[in-house]
């Protein structure tokens, strides 16, 4: 049931608020007559069938607002991959710092409530150095601290800009 509760998070919030409880109840009922493997095969097939429709219905009724959070997470992953690549192929630290500020600022604007989380995006730079670069441990710690600080500045500036604009 814990796994199913996690899978339910893929549904749009409006749908989840109305039907999360009865859906869990239905899976509990099904689990009494189906073996676990068959139960989860049924659940996964149902998930692939019903998820697009649930999101389309939510978009029709509420607009695209509920897609903002998953979109921001996807954007942060893409930003991390992009930053790591630039870090490994460029020696210009000014460009990297500028990119981190721009990316974290955008993330802060998109989702101001999780500004602290977007700051961690900048940690992909020491991570890239650790995995593929040649920096020593001391350099890495210094770089990680510096990048987190830059990321924090960017994301909180973005979050503040968004809140300020909203007002």
């Amino acid at each position, binding site marked *: 049931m814990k796994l199913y509760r996690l899978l339910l998070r893929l549904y749009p919030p409006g749908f989840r608020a109305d*039907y999360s409880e009865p859906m869990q109840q239905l899976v509990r009922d099904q689990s009494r007559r189906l073996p676990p493997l068959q139960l989860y095969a049924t659940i996964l097939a149902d998930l692939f069938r019903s998820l697009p429709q649930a999101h389309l219905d939510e978009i029709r009724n509420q607009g695209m607002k509920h897609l903002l959070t998953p979109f921001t997470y996807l954007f942060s992953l893409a930003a991390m991959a992009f930053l790591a690549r630039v870090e490994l192929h460029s020696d210009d630290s000014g460009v990297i710092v500028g990119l981190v500020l721009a990316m974290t600022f955008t993330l802060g604007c998109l989702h101001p409530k999780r500004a602290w989380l977007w700051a961690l995006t900048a940690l992909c730079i020491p991570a890239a150095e650790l995995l593929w670069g040649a920096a020593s441990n001391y350099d890495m710690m210094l770089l990680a601290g510096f990048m987190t600080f830059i990321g924090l500045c960017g994301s909180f500036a973005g979050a503040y800009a968004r809140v300020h604009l909203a007002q």
Partner: protein
Amino acid sequence: MEPLTPAVFHVLLALATEEKHGYAIMHEVETETKGTVKMGPGTLYGTLKRLLDAGLIEEAGERRDPEMNDERRRYYRITAAGRAAARAEAQRLHAAVRIARARGVLA
């Protein structure tokens, strides 16, 4: 009136006789269609939500099912508009079957 999807039509048919909760609807649809229309929790509640939005069914409160365990369940009932939509779909299918018979497609 636009044709109904098989899932919507069978949910309306399942509710035609009495109020039912989600699991009872799912079970009845599976039994009546001999497993050809299968609905998981997402498909079932997605269909119920669309039917509620369209006014074809309505909620009939929460209570316990005496034949099942102790949990309270949300019941649904068909509305007059839902009955009319199911009737129109049944007539449409009946007409299609008549044509199929006349042309020797169906014995």
